[in-house]
């Protein structure tokens, strides 16, 4: 049974096909309004989420399907000590597809090994969040017209940011990509990302601590939050935090068609004043997430039916 646990489970061709489907859904929503009629999505959210759960639910409703599920572990049998494997087997009797978020890393993988229906990883701790990457890819595609020959900057916490690692992984499979890594020393991208992803794929990359210096080169700027708890001391955090807050001043020498992205939730790393800038794409990203989840549900249900 085909599931989606990690973004690299999908080939670039499959991602391209899903992007085409998502674009068609955007243009012709009525065509898909009954595509999942009679089908049920189970949203198994063992920890709270605003965007992802509602995005999955909205996606299924717009495909004409139904949704069952729970939004916290306390309202499921997990509170009684039921294993992920047993939950997956049980839900397979009720639903046609599962979207699972779990605080423990690897839980959706365990579910996929035990379910008889497709499982979508809707985020497992700090590990994977492939549908966020699909939302990011559709956003880049729609804003830039494709992926080739783009210079993509990642800014903020590049050490612990799962969305950053996942998007670097996905983009590394396209040609002509240049990656610019902008972070404090303490939050640099882990060396295994460079060794296992960037170097073998011949992706040129620049590492810097200064956002303003590289701003004019960027086609895409992917912002993430620099969290206080990631620093060993308060002094370093206070010294660095403002360098990674995007405001209109820092955008003065940016390209006119820069695409500014953020996986959200935002705290203060993008000033609210940037929201009115036409280059701000982070709320479009949220909408694109729903369309890619629709394309993904369609794909996995179609494969399951074969």
């Amino acid at each position: 049974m085909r599931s989606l646990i990690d973004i690299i489970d999908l080939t670039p061709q499959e991602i391209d096909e899903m992007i085409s489907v998502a674009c068609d859904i955007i243009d012709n929503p009525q065509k898909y309004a009954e595509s999942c009629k009679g089908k049920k999505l189970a949203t198994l959210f063992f920890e709270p989420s605003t965007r992802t759960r509602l995005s999955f639910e909205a996606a299924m409703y717009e495909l004409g399907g139904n949704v069952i599920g729970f939004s916290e572990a306390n309202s499921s049998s997990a509170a009684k000590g039921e294993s992920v494997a047993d939950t997956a087997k049980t839900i397979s009797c009720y639903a046609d597809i599962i979207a699972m978020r779990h605080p423990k890393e690897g839980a959706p993988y365990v579910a996929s090994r035990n379910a008889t229906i497709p499982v979508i990883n809707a985020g497992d701790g700090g590990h994977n969040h492939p549908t966020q990457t699909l939302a990011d890819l559709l956003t880049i595609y729609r804003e830039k017209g494709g992926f080739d020959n783009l210079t993509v900057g990642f800014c903020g916490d590049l050490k612990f940011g799962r969305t950053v690692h996942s998007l670097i992984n996905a983009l590394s499979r396209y040609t002509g990509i240049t990656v610019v890594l902008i972070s404090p020393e303490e939050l640099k991208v882990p060396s295994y990302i460079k060794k296992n992803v960037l170097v073998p794929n011949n992706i040129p990359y620049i590492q810097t601590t200064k956002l303003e210096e590289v701003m004019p080169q960027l086609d895409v700027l992917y912002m993430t939050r620099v969290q206080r708890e990631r620093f060993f001391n308060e002094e370093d955090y206070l010294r660095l935090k403002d360098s990674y807050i995007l405001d209109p001043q820092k955008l003065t020498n940016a390209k006119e068609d820069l695409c500014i992205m953020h996986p959200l939730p935002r705290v203060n790393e993008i000033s609210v004043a940037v929201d009115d800038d036409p280059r701000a794409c982070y709320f479009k990203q949220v909408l694109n997430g729903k369309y890619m989840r629709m394309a993904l549900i369609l794909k996995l249900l179609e494969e399951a039916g074969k």
Partner: protein
Amino acid sequence: MKVDAIQNGIVIDHITAGLAFRLYNLLELDKLDCPVAIIKNVNSAKMGKKDIIKIDSEHPIDFNVVGFVDPKATINVIKDGVLKEKLSIDMPLKLKNVIKCKNPRCITSVEQEIEHVFLLTDKEEKVYRCLYCETKADI
């Protein structure tokens, strides 16, 4: 120092000095009731210092564990006091239920029934990662 030659069993030789106890523990040799000798810091022309483990029993051992801890080690099979076979071992591609994931956020930390599986992801650097959360294993 003299350790008697064994009659029927296994000698794990050329163990990188300092790794014998790790190997002893992971192979669960403490559970055997036959003579087991750990010889540390033996002079070696090739390695400078090495460790050796002698097991005087035909009890089978998991070669994957040896390959995981120290792929440079060699295994000598002794029959009737004579060296019968000399085996070199490679790093296993998959390691099942030998070590546990140290990541407290890994699903294996809370669910007892799940197998602990590690995959070799970088042979050159000797890196194993948890199948579930991809955390790097301590060797």
